[in-house]
């Protein structure tokens, strides 16, 4: 059997599980390109969006990706991630739209949260929805996965959003076979999650198989950190340790990429994909549980944000 789609078939006419979910994701991406007028792909520079970009590239090869890429920039990103974003987009000759939370704040559309080192996590929603309206986008690709978080476990591949961008989890469209229903009225849109069925381990195995480049912060490095709310936060321009928060150097890496204010590092010496795969396989904490303060606001923090129109 010929090697196909980055993963080898397991036997005669049987795809490996990674090849099967890759084929499914490509099917979804093509379906969106065929049925919607103005799709856009959200790209954060994180590992899931790197995979999304690669899948989109595969779906339309040898043609270019037939939709633009959008980054919702909180202004609090890791600089390594922004550099990486710009390089990736240039390499693929894709067009990048940057929707800026800072500009939303400056324009009075959003208000910075109060308190020490305010997170702009929740403010992203307003900026995103404004950018979608402005660009008249009717389909928005995201790299969310169902294994990440319990509200996301209920998410459809095609997730309907009303004219306010709201998600109504109790009233979702049934999704049968692979027959996706993207029908909507003007002003409404569909969030599309082609890698819904991928797990964190799948993501890393795929990154390894495909030799995909990631922002350097995913791999072990030495960094000045301090402990807050049980997480290791990096010091930086938007994160200021209080007097009682001791700053120290640690060997860390990141399992997710979000704002510097709410994304914690994990202590790790893993410098290669293979070492990370071993670490993920042995980990007893979910990636968001280990590293995301934004999910810890309440038991239903993700559900509440998603209802408002969050990713």
């Amino acid at each position, binding site marked *: 059997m*010929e*090697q*196909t*789609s*980055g993963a080898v078939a*397991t036997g005669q*006419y*049987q*795809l*490996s*599980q*990674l090849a*099967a979910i890759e*084929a*499914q994701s*490509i*099917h979804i991406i*093509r*379906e969106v390109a*065929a049925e919607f007028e103005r799709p856009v792909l959200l790209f954060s520079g994180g590992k899931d969006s790197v995979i999304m970009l690669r899948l989109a590239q*595969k*779906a*339309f*090869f*040898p*043609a*270019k990706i037939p939709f633009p890429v959008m980054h919702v920039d909180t202004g609090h990103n890791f600089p390594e991630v922004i550099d990486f974003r710009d390089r990736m987009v240039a390499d693929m000759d894709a067009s990048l739209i940057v929707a800026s939370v800072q500009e939303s704040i400056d324009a009075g559309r959003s208000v910075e949260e109060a308190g020490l080192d305010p997170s702009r996590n929740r403010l992203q929603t307003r900026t995103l929805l404004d950018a979608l309206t402005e660009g008249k986008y009717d389909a928005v690709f995201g790299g969310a996965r*169902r*294994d990440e*978080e*319990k*509200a996301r*476990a*209920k998410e459809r591949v095609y997730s309907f959003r009303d004219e306010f961008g709201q998600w109504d*989890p*109790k009233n*979702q*469209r*049934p*999704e*049968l076979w*692979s*027959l996706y*229903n993207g*029908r909507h*009225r003007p002003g409404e849109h569909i969030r599309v999650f082609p890698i*819904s*069925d991928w*797990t964190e*381990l799948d993501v890393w195995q795929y990154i390894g198989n495909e030799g995909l480049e990631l922002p350097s912060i995913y791999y072990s490095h030495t960094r000045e950190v301090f402990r807050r709310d049980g997480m290791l936060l990096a010091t930086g321009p938007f994160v200021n340790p209080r007097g009682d928060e001791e700053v120290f150097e640690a060997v860390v890496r990141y399992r997710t990429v979000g704002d510097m204010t709410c994304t914690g590092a994990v202590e790790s010496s893993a410098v290669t994909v293979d070492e990370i795969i071993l670490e993920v396989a042995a*980990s*007893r*904490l*979910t990636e968001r*549980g*280990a590293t995301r303060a934004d999910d810890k606001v309440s*038991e*239903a923090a993700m*559900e*509440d944000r998603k209802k408002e129109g969050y990713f």
Partner: protein
Amino acid sequence: MELLRFATAGSVDDGKSTLIGRLLYDSKAIFEDQLEAVERVSTQRGDEYTDLALLTDGLRAEREQGITIDVAYRYFATPARKFIIADTPGHVQYTRNMVTGNSTADLTMVLVDARKGVVEQTRRHAFLASLLRVPHLVVCINKMDLVDYDQAVFESIRAEFTAFASRLDISDMTFIPVSALQGDNVVTRSANMGWYEGASLLHHLESVFIASDRNLIDSRFPVQYVIRPKANEYHDYRGYAGRIDGGVFRPGDEVMVLPSGLTTTVEAIDTFEGPIDEAYAPMSVTMRLADNIDISRGDMICRPNNQPTVGQDLDAMVCWMTEKPLKVGDFCHLKHTTRWVRAVVREINYRLDVNTLHRDEAATELGLNDVGRLSLRVTQPLFYDSYRRNRLTGSFILADEGSNVTAGAGMLLGPD
């Protein structure tokens, strides 16, 4: 490593959540932070034990009301396979969720409480698995610890279920006596039931043979998207992108394109990694053809000597999924493979009672969660196979013309 998708259905007290919880926990797919979150909520609510249902009931309303509203997808893997569980509620008012969960399943797991035997819900689950043509059915006879691991109880339930299932179309059926709470026969064989000679549930899930479940005979390639790079390097490139929905295609194969009926040969099958020698279901590929013929999305590429049925008059089993009932004369949007058409209901042949399998031929409408046999007429011909022959080219969805919601799931009936 292969992928196995399985569906489960059940209510709060039949031990389904405990069983799933145990599979996930024992395969290390439950993480400490998830377990701690569940323990915290259980303690706050004053539960006497940690309620593993909280792991799958992800929505606030579900946790507050202690019910499962919707399909939840859970993931775990063993060295042998990756598993995707579609976990659905079991009550009759959630028939549409069970239909949804079963539509993509390779296997359905039905739970029976050993103390209660085959009840209405058991029959409904088995019927829906058969209607959706899930290739494998596993009946877990649970709570064996509460009947002293008695073989006679197991045998009697097996006999009763088998008698009922003879009225259904189920090709592979396996019975496993388990205790989800105690862990008997879930991951490892139980020492408490020496009389049981079969595999543990997990071992069965890891080893059930699924390679022959796909249709590798009838070559079907619905065109999804036409790739034209508009770059000098690929000036004349015209590729037809899509998913192989049945059979095998190879370069050099003579193919026919529907609806035109024109024939040509496959010049190449392209992927990002390069051309490949053959493509089979469910691969996503790009096909180039030897002759330049007019092909667009919604067309079907097949073999001249093995064509799908082409027609505008359809007979189908339909599960209705929305509040507004479906009546004769109603119009809907219909999506089949890569094609949207409009459909009108010509006739409701009968409505089926999902509990008793009784056919009500006097029915004049299908309400929410009803299943019935319909005759439909569509605005353009579809290229289809019977659902029993191919789940991908034999299925369709219906959408409401006003709200656009997905309102029905259809399984086409055909000559075979």
